[in-house]
């Protein structure tokens, strides 16, 4: 009897197994990622560049609904609080700022005026006083004109401590103090403006800073400079229903389920150098995980034909998509500005030769295979990712794709340093990989898993007890100014919340940062590239590892999608639906 039961049960299983069986040979033809894409960028000097309308996208037609499938909701929609990648590429659809990047999707960026006629006027050429003249014909979703008053109000409300989450550059620069909300209390002064911000007339916004702030035009390209009429300010609830100044307005928002955006009829394309308004509706739908999202788009049926899987093609499905040429026209692949490095805690690992040995020992190829291969990451030997303005490639510690254990051993001179590697418990495989990699070169590695949720917070504490861990930095604009000083200026080190997580401090280097930061942004680019190499050669405060690769699939009827050269995520300014 029992045997019969077992046989019946086994039968059911065999049917399931047969459904799974697939037999094909896996070979070593790699999927090619364009790793050489180098970003070139300028700040528009010709006001014509900032004028609308944006050139038509070839083949684009009006109408239809474009859908983005994403696992989790967008953390913030309030333009003053947007800081996640999904939020940053979505916000331009309903929020216009003073400046914006014009992006051809191939790495060519031009910073242009968005609401402003130009990307800013450096009044005295000392980067301390900036003026922005607003265009005419710019309107909110209810048809009222956008004036300097609403732009200034938008910036003022970002001082409100209730509105957490957004970038803080402008606030800190205006107040000249990291504690900007103490210097100027928004709630108590709703009718006035923060220090340094003024509106000389209805179409002029003026910034006056205590120190040179040459990166202002870049910083204003974040959605936080979006305008808002004071009477439409609903405080924390604006997050659910932002007030639109862009080509789309939010008509329905079910938190955690979907965001529906429809055309804003008061948006005038003649004022906008970047955006289009092709689909009738743009919808975000939340819930499916990366696999489910990708599978939906792979299946390409019904509404999913005009959809994009935001979470990309996960490593486990890549070989299905990459190995099939029918999917090629529907994929978007590009390295992104998100750069990962093995951070070395220089407070603990003080021996320079040990840090250099780590750089020789690293097996980037093995690490990338562990992560899912060439569609997940491309190896990198520089601190700034290739998508940075003025990028220059170099390898300060040439050791080949899989590392050079002998060179590392030579530098260690017979020592076997014991290092503690911290990894999040959701990516423990990386710990396994790095341990076996580095131990071949003579290190003794202790892998310490910590709860993934708190890994970032803990490693940003100055007193953290670990020696090495993987860190990631994606700059807020593609300039070395928002990478190198942020990561290695020793004067910024505080008790917690450090971005300089190597805790590296060198006076000469800090001076060099100040020198370059005071230069004209265009002249800065080659200087940052030079400094990048110098930091790695002289100090080796980290081991550059890889730049993340974006690998996306969209439905057969979605068009105009490209990977943003600024954020490394799909951008929607040109999106359209094929009939």
């Amino acid at each position, binding site marked *: 009897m029992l045997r*019969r*039961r077992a*046989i*019946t*049960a086994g*039968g*059911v*299983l065999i049917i*399931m197994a047969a*459904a*799974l069986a697939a037999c094909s040979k896996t070979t070593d033809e790699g999927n090619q990622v364009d790793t050489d894409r180098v970003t070139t960028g300028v700040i528009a000097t010709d006001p014509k560049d900032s004028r609308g309308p944006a050139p038509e996208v070839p083949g684009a037609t009006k109408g239809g609904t474009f859908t983005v499938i994403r*696992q*989790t*909701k967008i953390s*913030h929609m309030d333009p003053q609080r947007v*800081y*996640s990648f999904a939020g940053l590429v979505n916000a331009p659809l309903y929020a216009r700022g003073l400046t914006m990047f014009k992006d051809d999707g191939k790495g060519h960026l031009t910073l242009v005026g968005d609401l402003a006629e130009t990307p800013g006027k450096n009044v005295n050429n000392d980067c301390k006083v900036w003026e922005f003249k607003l265009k005419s014909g710019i309107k909110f979703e209810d048809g009222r004109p956008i004036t300097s008053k609403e732009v200034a109000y938008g910036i003022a409300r970002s001082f409100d*401590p*209730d509105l*957490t*989450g957004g*970038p*803080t550059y402008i606030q800190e620069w205006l107040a000249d103090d*990291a*504690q900007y*909300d103490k210097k100027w209390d928004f*709630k108590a002064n709703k009718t006035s403006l923060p220090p340094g911000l003024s509106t000389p007339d209805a179409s002029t916004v003026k910034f006056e800073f205590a120190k040179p702030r040459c990166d202002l035009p870049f910083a204003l390209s974040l959605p936080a400079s979006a305008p808002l009429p004071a009477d439409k300010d609903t*405080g*924390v*609830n604006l*997050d*659910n229903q932002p007030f639109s100044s862009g080509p789309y307005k939010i008509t329905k928002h*079910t*938190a*955690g*389920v979907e965001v529906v955006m429809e055309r804003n009829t008061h948006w005038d394309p003649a004022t906008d150098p970047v955006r289009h308004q092709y689909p009738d509706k743009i919808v975000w739908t*939340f*819930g*499916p*995980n990366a696999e*489910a999202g990708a*599978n*939906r788009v*792979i*299946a390409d*049926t*019904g509404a*999913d034909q005009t959809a994009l899987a935001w979470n990309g093609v996960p490593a486990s499905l890549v070989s299905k998509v990459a190995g099939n040429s029918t999917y090629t026209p529907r994929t978007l692949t590009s390295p992104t500005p998100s750069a990962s490095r093995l951070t070395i805690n220089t407070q603990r690992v003080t021996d320079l030769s040990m840090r250099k040995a780590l750089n020789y020992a690293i097996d980037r190829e093995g690490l990338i295979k562990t992560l899912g291969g060439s569609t997940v990451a491309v190896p990198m030997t520089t601190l700034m990712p290739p998508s940075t303005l003025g990028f220059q490639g170099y390898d300060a510690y040439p050791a080949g794709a899989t590392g050079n254990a002998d060179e590392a051993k030579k530098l260690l001179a017979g020592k076997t340093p014991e290092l503690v590697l911290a990894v999040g418990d959701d990516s423990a495989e990386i710990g396994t990989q790095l341990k076996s990699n580095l131990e071949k070169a003579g290190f003794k590695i202790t892998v310490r898993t910590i*709860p993934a*949720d*708190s890994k*970032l*917070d803990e490693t940003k504490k100055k007193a953290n007890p670990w020696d090495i861990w993987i860190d990631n930095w994606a700059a*807020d604009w593609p300039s070395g100014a928002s990478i190198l000083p942020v990561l290695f200026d020793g004067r910024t080190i*505080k*008790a*917690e*919340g450090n*971005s300089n997580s190597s805790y590296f401090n060198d006076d000469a280097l800090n001076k060099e940062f100040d020198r370059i930061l005071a230069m004209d942004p265009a002249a800065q680019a080659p200087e940052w590239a030079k400094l990048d190499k110098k930091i790695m050669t002289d100090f080796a405060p980290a081991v550059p590892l890889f730049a993340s690769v974006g690998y996306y699939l969209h439905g057969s009827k979605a068009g105009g999608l490209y990977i943003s050269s600024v954020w490394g995520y799909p951008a929607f300014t040109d999106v359209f639906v094929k009939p």
Partner: protein
Amino acid sequence: MFRFLVKRLLSAISTLIAVSVVTFLMFFALPRDPVMGMCPKNCNAERLERVRQELGLNDPKHEQYLAYMKGIFAGRDLGSSQGGRCDAPCLGYSYVNSEAVTDTFARVLPVTLSVVIPAAILWLLLGVGLGVISALRRGGTLDRLSIGFSLTGASMQLYFVGAVLQLIFIYNLKLLPVPHYTPLLQNPLDWAAGLVLAWWALAFLFSAIYARLSRAQMLETLSEDFIRTARAQGLPKAKVYGRHALRAAITPIVTIAGLDVGGALGGTVITETTFGIQGLGRTAVDAVRSGDLPTIMATVLISAAFIVVANIVVDLLYASIDPRVRLR
């Protein structure tokens, strides 16, 4: 009867209070600082401190607890960063989701109910049906097939079955849409289409227990004297089995079903993750991961309430089905 109810209710309330206290303490044992997630890139200690102050995270724990409990019954005033006045039943304001927790629940509860209740009906019908058939056809092919089926189900895991079912029916055969939730009243057909795989996966796994149980119970009652007497008196087969045998067999089934449904409502995490549906379970997991105390409290309390209520309902049903049981 009345005394019994009062006693059960009192015990249920005390259980729920204990659950809420334990959950609250558990939250403070979490290593994650909920405030950290609120400013991802450039935080400083002082601003974090002010946010903590604003959210009341610096108050003594028992005060925070009492304030939360008071909110449920009387409403409370939250700071301007948390949407202001929050009327009873106030489950707090989720600073992670930027909405009142009651709104979150109004959204996710129907989802979980839509997953579990039809699935429970399906697995009960399937399980009891299979069990009864195999009891009546003891030793026959049908018996063996149904036992094989239920043993297979009992030995499989939901996430495995769910993944395979999705691969076959959605991506390969393209018979069904990707699992999703549409409100029943908005479009009943779409509602069913979006959830049907989840129902079957759950039913496949759960029916096994019921098939086994109802088979054993049926066999037992069939051999009892009163059934034999009824058969001997020449009562029709269907009537004997239907009215007498099944009725006696159903008592323990109801007990387990009640507990299972209660448990399933509180524990749909795996189902929801497998099928990518955002209901109570996933909301709870997200809340624990992001240290979202008000949402954690509310999800735990609601799932505990399901189980406690299911227990009481089971006791009452028990009494009304089986006259031998008297409530004390």
